[in-house]
């Protein structure tokens, strides 16, 4: 990507062009994140004597983290939420939509495409309200199972995963559609020529070709779901009985409900670290694909 004569020497122009981005990210993104890492190791509180006069407390918050059974539960719930909704749900549903839309009649393609993309573009607050109404007693979902069924409180994690899939599948569909469109038709036709079924062609030709797109999509959806706060916060507030208390919710609860800003920041830091691990894995996987392709 760096061929071309302009790129032969390091230049001031590049520096100038990057300057706004770098300043903005440092001041309003990286700075606050680093500060949050520091706050995670202090006793800062929302209110009380340590609200303004807080200090570094060493490993004390970390010690608490390790012994906090709710943190471990929350970590597990986060893994379930991300795996079920992002990795399985969104990618599978998004792929199904992308493939079907490619072959459907024009009007159906337009209609379903619009619904799914709008569901993705809807503000998280609206999506959360829609899903609360959809899954609570008397809602559309409960009408299917007898009108008094309280689907949301009976299967809270399942419902919030569905809601996340609903609200994110449109994004996956767009990403994967772009990938599918880039697959040369000749390849697929060749496969069909050799007598392979459509299913087989899809598995052994299409999937390997768009694998980088799929990996990218999984990473993006994972990151978006990891940072998801509004949807679950409005739908369940993390309940009932902490059944949907994923890390962003637990972090918010510690920081802004119990007022323990320091510990809340530490919980948020854990999310950042998980995101970093995913990004690292992504780089490893995409390098491996690149090598395999070459």
């Amino acid at each position, binding site marked *: 990507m760096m061929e071309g004569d302009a790129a032969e020497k390091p230049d001031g122009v590049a520096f100038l062009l990057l300057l*706004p981005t770098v*300043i*903005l990210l440092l*001041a309003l993104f990286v700075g606050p994140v680093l500060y949050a890492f520091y706050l995670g190791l202090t006793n800062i*509180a*929302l*209110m*009380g*004597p340590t*609200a*303004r006069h807080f200090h570094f407390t060493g490993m004390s918050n970390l010690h608490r983290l390790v012994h*906090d*059974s*709710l943190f471990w539960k929350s970590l597990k719930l986060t893994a379930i939420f991300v795996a079920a909704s992002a990795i399985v749900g969104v990618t599978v549903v998004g792929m199904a939509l992308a493939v079907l839309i490619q072959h459907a009649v024009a009007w159906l393609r337009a209609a379903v495409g619009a619904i799914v993309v709008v569901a993705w573009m809807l503000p998280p607050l609206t999506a959360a309200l829609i899903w609360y109404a959809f899954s*609570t*007693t*008397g809602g559309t979902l409960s009408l299917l199972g007898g009108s*008094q069924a*309280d689907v*949301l*409180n009976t299967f809270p994690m399942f419902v919030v995963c569905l809601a996340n899939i609903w609200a994110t599948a449109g994004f996956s569909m767009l990403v994967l559609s772009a990938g599918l469109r880039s697959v040369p038709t000749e390849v697929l036709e060749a496969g069909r020529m050799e007598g392979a079924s459509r299913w087989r062609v899809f598995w052994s030709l299409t999937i390997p070709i768009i694998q980088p797109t799929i990996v990218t999509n999984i990473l993006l959806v994972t990151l978006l779901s990891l940072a998801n706060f509004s949807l679950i916060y409005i739908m369940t*507030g*993390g*309940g*009932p*009985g*902490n059944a949907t208390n994923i890390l962003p919710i637990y972090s918010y609860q510690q920081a*802004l*409900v*119990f*007022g323990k800003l320091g510990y809340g920041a530490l919980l948020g830091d854990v999310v950042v670290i998980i995101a970093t691990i995913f990004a690292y894995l992504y780089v490893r996987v995409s390098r491996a694909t690149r090598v395999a392709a070459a």
Partner: protein
Amino acid sequence: MLEHRRRLLCAAALAAAAMTVAGGTSRPAQAADKTVISCAYSETYVFDNEDLTKKWWGGIKADFEKMHPDVTVQLVPIQGGYDDIVNKLSLLYRSPATAPDIAQMATPTVDRFASSGYLLPLDKYLAKTDWWKKFPPVIQGEGAWQGKTYSVNTGENDSMLYYNVDLFKKAGLPVPWKPTSWNDILAAGRVIKAKLPGVVPIWILAGTGSGDNTVLMGVDTMLAGSSTPTIFDEKTQKWVVDSPGLREVFGFYHSVFSEGLGAKISDLFSTSGVTAPVFMIPKNQIAITFGSNFYGGNWSKLVSTPYWPQAAQVAAVVPVPTVNGKAPNISTTIGGWDLAISATTKHPDLAFELLDFMMNKENQINAANWAGFVPADTDYVKDPSFINFAAPYNELSAVVLPYGVIEPPSGDYLVWSRGAQEATGALAQHPNTTVDQAIGILSDYVKNQLDPSQTEVLK
């Protein structure tokens, strides 16, 4: 609006040099010759509706500015619910530039704001007023921290038991009803369940959906009338996570939900659980309600949350009895909203003058009626304009008030409260949850969040 739009174009053009955008478009400065007193308050949470919020605070501003032509009262309404108000206020206080001169805050949070160093001691001002000495000591104490007073109360909420006269008659229960123990309540609930299927026999909040309100109107209210009312043991400085009183309370919840006397969890766990009875009682959907004093005002013509002219005939109120009917046989918590002045205010005297104006009889009774409060002033509660606004509810709320118990002011109370919410939530959702298990949930929660050494068991 036009000016905004022009500014936007400007902003868009400058966006590459984004850092300058915000600086160039800060709020227009107030007229230089006027003194500004800012007031932060809840926009939607405290008063019964937004229009009444605007009416009360707008009235204060207009009247005070008329009395002081050189003063501008700047209104800073805060959006959202209880937690949002606490958060926003604590953020505003972090910088002298944003700290409001006067702030409305929930009574249990006063200690935390005061201990942060954000509030101005008011003792020297209060000594000169004629209203402060008429406050009951328990309410004066709500604004005290380390021997000084930092806030004044502008109205309280307390707990009462509502029962539906029509439903009671239909079920063949005696009216007027005078429950003297918790078992009386359960007994009436059982009759309702048997005779009137489809009606919620006993509404008592449970779960985490409504936050601490659930505990304030449920567990804490009942605990106040149990054999061991202690939540935080002042002597040992420890949180009580198991006691005979707690077991009596959880035992009551267990009976309600295991016998099918409670409401649906989708109603109880919803964020609107606190106000749901205001709508359900007029529709004859609930027989007995562990409720709050504010329901009555909401049914008045002025507030009309739903306007319910028959309220006084249908929805009767009695105090929540104690567990075994020990005199005076009243259990309630109290919690309300206070006004405080910022420690960094540039105009402490003027700010107190404004606060004093808000505390006058007319403003206080309006606040009580429009927000569903009991006024703190022992004279105001006897005034016909208060009593008749929502009869018979306002009168009983004033009778109950002096017996009120306040929640422990420590911030860690919210952890204990959350544990109690989890415990009642489990009792409501899984009717086979035993009292032992409920105690276990509370105990484990508090021990995990704080430390086992900060908890104790009362025998």
